[in-house]
């Protein structure tokens, strides 16, 4: 937090003089000094609670002795703290003894065995001979949901699960019920759990009362082999702990160790329960060749040889620019680097791109403009200390669930104020004192931002003179904002001006500001205009305001950032180094060039454009026409089925490298299990191909590739091997701040026949093309369900559970619907992740939100 500087307090701990910031509780201060105080219910992520009563210490202030609970008692000047005195031990032991009377002590079959705070504390207090008669509880475990087992006999009522569900996750699906001797934790009336299934309660439970039902093993967690790696779903880049036993991936846990990763051990449903996609019988086992529509298993040598021959022939006949590649947003940096090197240096083709770039080529430009404007953005680890967070068109619990955890923590401990701008009334429960909600009409994103910019200038919330001095085209910006009067904006956006003034005033204050942008804006058809508006707003705050502004480009998948960083784009080399384009840019209009025959061979590394692209029919047409298609993937996707050669590659749990998250943290990916079948890491495939093309790569290991990346992309220097999740910093920044002025984006005029707008995005439990292979994720959300508002449901007499037909200009689909207040009138929301509900086919190339109409199906 920029605004508050905390006083330092000096005190003694067991005689040693120590200092810590004001407000620190004794337990946390001791933890920093590596002094262990027994405790069962405290976590740095949660508010102090003092449920377990086992953390008593002795304090002496001004000669007055007191016994206090260290988890809630703050340090004070001159305080003398003693831990483990005879007296405190006696009290702490008594409380623990009581817990052990009832606790089952079934440690050999307990998930927490060996990593159990109850065991640690029992040992720390030498509590080997309890005085009381043992009365074990023996109730059956509750398995009413597919993911989380409640074995409440082990519960010690510390309330950690209840608190993390409430404070960190904002869901509050669990609470205490009844009281006294009958007290229990659980859902209302023991109904089946219906929540975000983040599983945070499992990780934080100190005793194994809550267990992961998706895990095949029971007991002795301390004997599992742990591999720390980076999650492969969304672009937030959480550090996950893959737990393996005898070569099998057993489960995924968050790592709550201090300073590991960016997520403090928080994970979401996908990250924690998505492990079913790794060791799965549906994985592609061997290289496959398409012979007249049938896939025939072939060996790796034959596959590589065939591809090499085909590349040589195509280059000789049609030139190197007729061979193109799509890099993978889920491939590592090193793999993407090698793929572009293979194409640029070995094949001589500059026709490399990635689907993020094909969909929104302006995102990299936006990032570059931010750097030029001096907006480098802090590491995302500081989000929890933000003063104000603007969530712009992002449904945080679905898009970046773990970001939501940090923001909620900030709201509790750092007083973060929350601004939410979204066309939907997205849910975000938090404990912040201030929430400004701007629920605007679809496609009026840019107007909302531009009006806020204008209010900043008009109401003198920023130092206009200073900004004018620094940024040459300031007057042009003022000119371009002139049309955003209060009445005009109110009419276009439907948001009251008072609300926007409130938001602007909050942003204008001296503060650390974070702006998170949702991938939804890329679907509005005005992505560039919206990003430009946000850039202008950020520049105004950067140069005219005090504090900091941090803004991150929208990225969807785990390495959507890295694939661009590594030069899998035709315009720039790795590290955004400029290059002389000596070839026409054929991948800018990739699918058309495939269909027209200018691209003769296409290599797709780990992507499924048939399903994910917004121009499905164009993609399919292109892929059918292109003479030779190579697809590397771990599952037989729709795209892979159209390939001439399919190469089985490794999932994130089987390979080495780094992913770069959306805030540019370079983080390690480490292998935990052996590859499935004959699958090989993409790294080896690219190396073998270079060898077969007679220009072998010199590097023999991932580390060597990393060294090379450090030399060609200077901003990546010092970030490898990605263990400390360092953020890469642009080598040059702040050289030429400039407002982006031009197209401001306008909403389409609503059509009479298709009066509603369709918004699609990733579902909370799914992303990309693999999450549907994880059984657990399918179990908790088996069906695709559309959402409409109460108002629309009443007008059309539709109830939750009905089926509706969504009709666009080009296509239609039928889907069950639920009526919710998350969706605003005029909008129908359908998650895009179900293969059997391909919402993208309704779009079919249409720019902007898709105009649709809906009808109730009988």
């Amino acid at each position, binding site marked *: 937090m920029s605004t508050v500087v905390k006083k330092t307090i000096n005190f003694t701990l067991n005689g040693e003089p120590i200092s810590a910031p004001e407000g620190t509780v004794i337990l946390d201060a001791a933890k920093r000094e590596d002094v262990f105080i027994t405790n069962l219910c405290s976590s740095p992520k949660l508010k102090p609670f003092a449920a377990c009563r086992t953390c008593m210490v002795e304090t002496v202030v001004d000669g007055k002795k007191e016994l206090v609970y260290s988890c809630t008692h703050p340090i004070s000047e001159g305080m003398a703290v003693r831990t483990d005195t005879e007296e405190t031990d006696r009290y702490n032991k008594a409380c623990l003894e009581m817990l052990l009377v009832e606790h089952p002590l079934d440690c050999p079959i307990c998930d927490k065995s060996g990593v159990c705070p109850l065991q640690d504390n029992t040992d720390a207090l030498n509590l080997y001979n309890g005085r009381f008669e043992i009365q074990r509880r023996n109730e059956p475990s509750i398995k009413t949901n597919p993911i989380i087992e409640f074995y409440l006999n082990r519960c010690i009522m510390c309330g950690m699960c209840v608190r993390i569900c409430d404070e960190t996750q904002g869901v*509050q699906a669990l609470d*205490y019920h009844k009281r006294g001797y009958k007290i229990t934790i659980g*859902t*209302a009336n023991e109904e089946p759990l219906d929540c975000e299934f983040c599983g945070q309660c499992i990780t934080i439970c100190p005793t194994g009362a809550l267990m992961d039902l998706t895990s095949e093993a029971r007991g002795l967690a301390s004997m599992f082999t742990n591999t720390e790696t980076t999650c492969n779903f969304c672009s937030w880049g959480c550090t996950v702990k893959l737990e393996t036993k005898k070569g099998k991936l057993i489960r995924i846990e968050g790592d709550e160790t201090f300073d590991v990763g960016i997520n403090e051990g928080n994970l979401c449903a996908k990250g924690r329960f998505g492990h079913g996609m790794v060791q799965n019988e549906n994985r592609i086992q061997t290289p496959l060749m398409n012979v007249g529509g049938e896939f025939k298993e072939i060996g790796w040598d034959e596959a590589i040889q065939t591809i090499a021959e085909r590349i040589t022939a195509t280059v000789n006949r049609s030139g190197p620019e007729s061979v193109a590649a799509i890099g993978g947003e889920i491939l590592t940096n090193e793999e993407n680097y090698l793929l572009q090197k293979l194409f640029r240096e070995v094949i001589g083709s500059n026709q490399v791109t990635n689907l993020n770039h094909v969909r929104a080529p302006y995102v990299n430009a936006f990032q570059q403009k931010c750097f030029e404007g001096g907006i480098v953005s802090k590491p995302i680890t500081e989000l929890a200390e933000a003063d104000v967070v603007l969530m712009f068109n992002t449904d945080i619990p679905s898009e970046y669930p773990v970001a939501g955890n940090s923001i909620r923590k900030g709201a509790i401990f750092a007083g973060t104020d929350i601004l939410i701008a979204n066309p939907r009334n997205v849910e975000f429960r938090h404990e912040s004192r201030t929430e400004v909600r701007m*629920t605007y009409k679809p496609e009026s994103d840019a107007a909302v931002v531009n009006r806020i910019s204008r209010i900043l200038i008009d109401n003198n919330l920023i130092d206009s003179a200073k900004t004018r001095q620094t940024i040459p085209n300031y007057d042009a910006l003022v000119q371009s904002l002139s049309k955003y009067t209060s009445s005009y904006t109110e009419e276009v956006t439907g948001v009251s001006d008072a609300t926007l003034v409130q938001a602007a005033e909050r942003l204008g204050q001296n503060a650390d500001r974070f702006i998170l942008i949702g991938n939804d804006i890329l679907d509005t058809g005005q992505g560039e205009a919206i990003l430009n508006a946000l850039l202008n707003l950020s520049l105004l705050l950067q140069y005219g305001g005090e504090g900091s502004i941090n803004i991150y480009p929208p990225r969807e998948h785990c390495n959507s950032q890295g694939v661009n960083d590594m030069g899998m784009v035709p315009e720039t080399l790795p590290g955004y180094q400029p290059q002389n384009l000596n070839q026409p840019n054929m991948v800018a209009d990739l699918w058309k060039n495939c269909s027209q025959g200018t691209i003769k061979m296409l290599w797709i590394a780990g992507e499924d454009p048939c399903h994910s692209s917004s121009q499905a029919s164009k993609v399919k047409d292109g892929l059918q026409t292109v003479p030779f298609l190579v697809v590397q993937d771990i599952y037989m996707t729709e795209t892979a089925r159209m390939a001439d050669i399919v190469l089985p590659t490794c999932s994130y749990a089987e390979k080495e490298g780094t992913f770069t998250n959306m805030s540019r943290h370079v983080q390690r990916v480490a292998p935990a299990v052996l590859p499935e079948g004959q699958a090989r890491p993409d790294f080896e495939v690219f190396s073998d191909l270079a060898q077969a093309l007679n220009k072998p790569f010199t590097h023999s290991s991932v580390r060597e590739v990393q060294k090379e990346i450090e030399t060609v992309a200077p901003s990546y220097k010092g970030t490898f091997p990605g263990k400390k999740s360092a953020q890469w910093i642009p080598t040059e920044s702040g050289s030429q701040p400039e407002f982006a002025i031009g197209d401001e984006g306008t909403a389409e005029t609503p059509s009479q026949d298709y009066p509603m707008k369709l918004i699609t995005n990733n579902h909370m439990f799914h992303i990309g093309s693999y999450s549907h292979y994880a059984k657990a994720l399918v179990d908790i959300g088996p069906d695709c369900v559309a959402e409409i508002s109460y108002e629309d449901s009443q007008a059309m007499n539709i109830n939750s559970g009905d089926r509706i037909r969504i009709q666009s200009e080009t296509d239609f689909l039928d889907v069950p619907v639920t009526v919710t*207040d998350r969706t*605003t009138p005029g909008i129908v929301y359908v998650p895009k992740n179900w293969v059997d509900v391909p919402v993208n086919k309704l779009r079919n190339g249409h720019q902007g939100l898709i105009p649709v109409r809906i009808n109730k199906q009988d």
Partner: protein
Amino acid sequence: MDTPDNGNTPEETATETAPEEKKICMDTVCKILDSFPSRSRRYLIPMMSKLQDEFRYLPEDVINLLMSELKITRAEIYGVISFYHQFRVTEPGKYIYKLCYGTACFVKGAPIIAEKMKEKYNIGQGETDETKLFTLEFASCLGNCGAAPMAIIGEDTYGTIDPEKTIEICNNYTL
């Protein structure tokens, strides 16, 4: 903010899910909620007390409305309800049979009176008989130890009762 229309939706679900039960008048509920300074969770307990005074228990629809109005979850509201014995979520019988289970009454035979009630009406603590005439509740101490064991049925107090007397008294109450 776009929240659902307060009056209509819960009323509709009420008619759908519980056709036989008395329809809950949502206007009354709203009137009670409006008698508080704001619809904030800090008034949850007094709100529930007043609502229970009105309906004699907290019907599901009222709970749902409270959840959406006060922005609290189902787990939390049931956590509060189950903490306080006085809150009921099922419709009680016409008369509440409050049997004193304080020390004096306990010693003087409250448990055998409870047994008799179980035998005659098949109701235990917190339960309601089939005809919905009585709901049996245990009280900690009703402050009339001199007349132990004692009970309060509806509004009437009965002292120095025994199992036989209890049945005689109960027979005076009809639906």
